[in-house]
């Protein structure tokens, strides 16, 4: 082997890049136009990023703007890339990493259907009260609760409903906003 082909030691003393995975909530301000959700979702799938949760709705009708809240799990380096790649999309106005900017307010809404009779119904209602879940539909054999709060609180309520006759759940996914007086 030629002497110059021998690997120099230098390459192997480099420290490995930290691959610590973090969960971040991004808020994305976009034009509310056809295909925008596909653009965002397509970017995540094409580049191998994770979507843990994604919500979208128009927030400023006169300006035709929507806010997308997306929760992703990635390394710090990938998180920076996700933000920059999102900003590269033409209809994207702003991207804020709410988690990086501080401790954002995060809320989710769930509708939880529970069916049961007798003592289970009483226990169900008692727990619902403790979790401040509202009854939005009731029959002699079932309830539908509306619960809002942090995702962890909703998850806990749902797990408590399992033995009491949980039928099904729908969740909105996370909505998030920064604290304090400043807007995005």
């Amino acid at each position, binding site marked *: 082997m*030629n002497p110059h082909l021998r*690997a120099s030691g*230098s390459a192997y003393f480099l420290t490995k890049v930290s691959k610590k995975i973090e969960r971040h909530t991004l808020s994305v301000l976009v034009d509310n136009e056809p295909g925008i959700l*596909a*653009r965002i979702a397509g970017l995540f799938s094409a580049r191998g990023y994770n979507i843990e949760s994604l919500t979208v709705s128009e927030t400023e009708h006169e300006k035709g703007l929507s806010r997308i809240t997306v929760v992703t799990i990635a390394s710090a380096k990938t998180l920076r890339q996700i933000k*920059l790649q999102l900003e590269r999309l033409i209809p994207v106005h702003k991207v804020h990493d709410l988690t990086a900017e501080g401790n954002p307010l995060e809320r989710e809404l769930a509708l939880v259907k529970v069916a049961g009779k007798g003592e289970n119904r009483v226990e169900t209602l008692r727990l619902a009260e403790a979790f401040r879940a509202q009854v939005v539909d009731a029959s002699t054999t079932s309830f539908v609760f509306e619960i809002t709060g942090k995702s962890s609180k909703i998850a806990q309520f749902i797990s408590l409903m399992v033995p009491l006759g949980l039928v099904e759940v729908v969740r909105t996914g996370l909505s998030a906003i920064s604290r304090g007086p400043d807007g995005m």
Partner: protein
Amino acid sequence: MSQKLTGAEMVIEALKDNGVEHIFGYPGGAILPIYDALFQQDSLEHILVRHEQGATHMAEGYARSTGKVGVVLVTSGPGATNAVTGLTDALLDSIPLVCITGQVPTPLIGSDAFQECDTVGITRNCTKHNYLVKNINDLARIIHEAFYIASSGRPGPVVIDIPKDVQFALGEYVKPSIQIQHQSYTPRIEGDLSAIEEAVDLMLKAKKPVFYTGGGIINSGPRASELLRELVELSGFPVTSTLMGLGAFPASSNNWLGMLGMHGTYEANMAMHDCDLMLNIGARFDDRITGRIDGFSPNSTKVHVDIDPSSINKIVDADLAIIGDCEHVLEEMVRIWRSKTNAPRAEAIKPWLEKIEEWKSIKSLRYENSEIIIKPQFAIQRLADAVKDHDVYITTEVGQHQMWAAQYFPFEKPNRFMTSGGLGTMGYGLPAAVGVQVAHRDATVIDIAGEASVQMTMQEFSTAVQFKLPIKIFILNNEYMGMVRQWQELLHGSRFAHSYSESLPDFVKLAEAMGGKGVRCEDPAKLDAAIAEMLDYDGPVLFDCRVERLENCLPMIPSGKAHNEMILPDTADIANIIDEEGKKLV
């Protein structure tokens, strides 16, 4: 000015207002109204292609050789899907294209109508942006915006999908505004001045600096190349370039190191590995460039100039990032350098330049010539010599011949080398040459090709004949998909699975059948005369240059290795160099 136009007429008006002179396209049902409008005017020339992929590569060649936006016009369904390869190619190489696709009438969208496809869905991830125009009153604004988006910032392809009913509909045409203001798209042109000053300070302190330049300089315009030359003259620093950046700096300069990367020169790669200051101007740390990332230039301070913020820290972390257009950043660098010193750094970096001379003396591009058989490297050198006084533009296909062209053809000016770098699209070069020739009728336009690649878009030779475009297709015919064969030799025990070009056409007869000229040469002694015969012919030529079949493209950084672990031409056994980890890479 309140005269109403049809959508189709608006397309023509908008193209004219955006400075378009040539369109590459193919008609079909859903685009007929625009073709009808095209028929009734004289200012736009339409080049009829043989396949829509050809149209996209022609537009790429046209755009890359002129700096203008290339325009493609195709029909719905297969017209649009055939254009996808070229659009993706343009996206990866940052080439400005506007591709107008016909679509089935609005009421039929989603009904699986004849020749319907979800064009905006399919092209969403292979364009910089795309539009479906549902309302005639949006059409003019969208076309103007498409040209702005395609050509500004980091350039790229934009698709405008126009349903047939919108092409017939009447509406008000609006002219493009002088200064387009986009709500959410605001590319940053001017680099941060304090960062540029910091970069110059680093340059003034560096002992082992190197410029690593890329396609961004060429996209930025000819002025950026001039400024690079000026900055190199001021500083005396050595320069290497990516495949896409070739020509931004003249190969005849003493500061030139040759291309870097997987098939770059030894001196370029060693300089990158050992430098203490890397100045990346308009390149993106592509994997063909970096080789093994954790062994990439371990001891250097890295300055990265890029117009696309997402390029920064994507692959390699930059110590100093400057987001902006190369021309602006280089201009400021030159200005600040001049304000700080009059003396070049040649003396201070002398040991470094001497080290580089040592690396150069290894002559990593040497090859053993033959008197019996034409060596591909020799063929390119003879070709380069034959056209050295021509106004010459080179395109390539993809593979060994492409790398040999990059290694052995000396590029002196920007916008002269058209090649598919990012996507690596075999079949790019012939149509790209057609596009270049459309823009430069009197220039010598040569596609350095391989016999496998060229067959992918061979039919566009017929386009060249039709439009009297005297392109020269210089085929290095080794009867193999050469790069595939080389990798099979490197990685797969020389089991050449399906990489032999069986049943090759007789290229001379093929050229004649299509109305061009064919030339064949297999004797090194007759090569110069044969090249002269090709160049003298006033029309398209297919040149079948029979070359050494098993020649490998070297030097090479094997996959999974770092810059300082190159295979040089005298390495006898290349089959056992790549380890198991490297074999999994591309």
